[in-house]
């Protein structure tokens, strides 16, 4: 057979690095898929550091004083929080899966601004490196808690300014990624890809991207004011100089509450992709799910005050913030009901991606319902600043965003790397993680109800039992994480070759080979129907 008549097999994006070779073909790439993989490996590297710091904290809490000093413990919870929030969850799903799949879902060859895209990663990794540096430089790791509340953050001699500069830079990466996604969604949709034909993952990224663009500058300004105040003693937040510590809280949460939705919305998007595929059925209530993303993003701006119910702000503002907080729970509820209804009259296959989604719904429901408890004004006076809060936001961020991330990781792994992982190992890991997670964090609710304050190095004897239980949970969870990542890393090298469409998905990425070629589509696809058509 003459060579010409055979279709030359296209090189995958993993083989075709463009102009450069080796490491440079990654760090100087403009291919959205390679950038997605860059983010994926970087966020999980930071995640691993964050997990180790968390385990060390839990270790210290079995017997305070035995393993580390109070100073070290205070830095641990600060750096753990900063890393997991700013370097793991916030960039997490949008920057990794978003970069990889957003253009493909739209039928495009790349994002609107590919060079800005790689620049964003560079900002992210620079900011991350500065943050890590702040742990080791003289002065000592920051010890303020991830919230950097003034005036303590102004007075401490630890490396707060350096850490704040790192976050400032990472923030710009987030803004630029948001800008890139919004433009791409508006301008780069394939012919026939109408707004209501877009996969729901894209809707969630769209809502997230706007929040990134509009809210992150507030954080940037807040951190800049903090750095200026620390360097020149200007007096924005220091009451001795006429500043106002409560203003710092307002500014901080004006970003950091919407940021909660930057973290959770993309995970909701992932879940919205997986339920239809594993039920072989169209999503129940497409528009309800799409609009609830926008609703969450919008109301998410207006509830920051619920972090401040005991801060000393006026009682009337507490009442208003509580009311809006209750309303923001509704669109999340709508999503949960629609996901579950998607399985009705479906043909459900319970593979690992779906298992992670089911765990997501269960854990996120607990997160949401305990959120109602602490959003209630009178109960907040009791539970604010205790382990109840710590339990609540770990259910939201780890049980919600984290498990959503793992669901997406298993769902898209074959597409991204062209290999299948061991399904049985994935299920085992899921089960161990689910058990460990609940032991670790549910005991925190009990601790909170007993009155145990958060950020305590040592504690009174009545809290000991639940602390030990929680630490045991942390070991079980860690074991599950090890099995999960071990299984995936093994699959990278030894996994079976993945077919183009292992799960029977109906969005555009499953029409491409696994892994896709550099250009994604040979010819621009023409879209004729909705994203979830199973026939």
């Amino acid at each position: 057979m003459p060579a010409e008549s055979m279709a030359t097999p296209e090189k995958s994006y993993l083989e075709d690095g463009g102009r450069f070779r080796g490491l440079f073909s990654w760090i100087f790439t403009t291919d959205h898929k390679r950038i997605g993989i860059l983010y994926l490996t970087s966020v999980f590297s930071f995640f691993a550091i964050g997990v180790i710091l968390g385990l060390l904290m839990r270790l210290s809490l079995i017997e305070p004083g035995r393993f580390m000093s109070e100073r070290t413990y205070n830095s641990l919870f600060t750096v753990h929080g900063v890393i997991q929030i700013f370097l793991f969850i916030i960039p997490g799903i949008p920057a990794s899966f978003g970069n990889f799949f957003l253009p493909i879902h739209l039928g495009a060859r790349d994002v609107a601004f590919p060079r800005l895209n790689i620049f964003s990663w560079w900002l992210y990794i620079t900011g991350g490196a500065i943050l890590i540096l702040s742990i080791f430089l003289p002065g000592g790791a920051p010890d303020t808690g991830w919230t950097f509340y003034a005036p303590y953050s102004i007075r401490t001699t630890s490396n707060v300014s350096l850490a704040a500069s790192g976050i400032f830079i990472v923030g710009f990466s987030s803004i630029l990624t948001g800008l890139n996604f919004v433009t791409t969604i508006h301008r780069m949709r394939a012919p026939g890809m109408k707004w209501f034909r877009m996969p729901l993952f894209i809707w969630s990224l769209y809502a997230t991207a706007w929040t990134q663009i509009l809210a992150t500058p507030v954080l940037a300004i807040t951190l800049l004011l903090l750095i200026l105040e620390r360097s020149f003693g200007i007096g924005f937040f220091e009451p001795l100089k006429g500043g106002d510590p409560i203003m710092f809280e307002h500014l901080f949460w004006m970003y950091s509450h919407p940021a909660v939705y930057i973290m959770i919305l993309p995970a909701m998007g992932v879940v919205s992709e997986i339920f239809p595929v594993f039920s072989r059925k169209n999503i129940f209530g497409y528009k309800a799910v799409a609009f609830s993303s926008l609703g969450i993003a919008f109301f998410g701006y207006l509830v920051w005050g619920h972090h401040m119910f005991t801060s000393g702000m006026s009682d009337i503002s507490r009442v208003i913030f509580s009311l809006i907080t209750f309303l923001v729970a509704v669109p999340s509820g709508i999503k949960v009901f629609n996901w579950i209804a998607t399985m009705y009259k479906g043909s459900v296959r319970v593979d690992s991606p779906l298992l992670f989604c089911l765990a997501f719904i269960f854990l996120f429901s607990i997160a949401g319902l305990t959120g109602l408890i602490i959003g209630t004004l009178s109960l907040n006076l009791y539970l604010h600043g205790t382990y109840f809060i710590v339990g609540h936001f770990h259910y939201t961020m780890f049980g919600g965003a984290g498990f959503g991330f793992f669901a997406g990781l298993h769902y898209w792994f074959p597409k991204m790397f062209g290999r299948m992982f061991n399904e049985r190992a994935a299920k085992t890991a899921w089960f161990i993680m689910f058990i460990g997670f609940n032991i670790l964090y549910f005991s925190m609710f009990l601790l909170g109800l007993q009155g145990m304050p958060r950020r305590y190095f040592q504690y009174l004897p009545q809290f000991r039992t639940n602390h030990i239980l929680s630490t045991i949970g942390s070991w079980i969870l860690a074991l599950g994480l090890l099995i999960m990542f071990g299984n995936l890393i093994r699959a990278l090298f030894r996994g079976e070759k993945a077919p183009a469409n292992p799960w029977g998905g109906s969005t555009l990425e499953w029409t491409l080979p696994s892994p896709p070629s550099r250009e994604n589509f040979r010819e621009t696809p023409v879209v004729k129907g909705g994203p979830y058509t199973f026939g």
Partner: protein
Amino acid sequence: MFIPEASNSAHYVDTTFWVIVVISAVLLVGVTSAMLFLIFRYNRRRGAKAEQVQGGTALEIIWTVIPVVLVLVMFVIGEKSFRLIRSVPREVMTVRVDARQWSWMFGYDNGLRSDQLRVPLGKPVKLRLSSADVLHSFYIPAFRIKEDCVPGMETYLWFTPQQQGSFDIFCTEYCGLGHSGMLAKVLVMPEKEFTDWYTGSGAKGNRGLQLLQEKGCLGCHTTDGTPKVGPTFKGIYGRTVTVITAGKERTIAVDGDYLKRSILDPGADMVKDFPPVMPKIPVTPEELEAIEDSLEHLR
């Protein structure tokens, strides 16, 4: 509940808590069992074939309206109990709460100061909270109340204690190195006992020791020999210590002059291996003498 209900607010809070927890538990069980039922009923292994249901407007309206009503109910009962907890009655005894890194001090209208909050059973008490340095938060779990102590402004709390005994006070706003040691007790005593204490106990006992307590020194320094944030006071007089003076280490024996200097200018000679965090706390010359004298005799 998990801890005693020792004040009037505790009752409102716990009732609200259980109402919301029951609603939430019903929702959680509902969602979870619906999920498990559907996985089982429509499992592909049981040969389920998918029917393409697109959605249902009626259902969407139902599961939007019902949650809206539920959360509004929760909001209203939460707001109602909140208002009760925040409305201070007219006839009330006022106590000033001064928070500082890392101790609490309670000041009474007759000038009495104490490092434990003593209150009479069944009488409403208003706390006027303030902070000398960074943010703190005043929290009595058994009373279900909490409010931040903010430097530069005054905040408040009030309660009627309804159970005799001693209950924990915590700081719940992270305030630096000694945060987890910033504890105190509220002692709820029968009215007569309280009045005796309030009127009777004046300047009895060791004046210096009392000052150490009032000035908050014992938040960081113990009198029993264990080091805390700072070195212990037990046997401090005459002890040989390594200090850092202007960046250089030197070894000295602790004497009266050193003790006074360390109180007036804590940064001058820092004992090695302890963090340089001690604030300057104002003392009169007479108080300084009394403190020095009592430290000299703490063996």
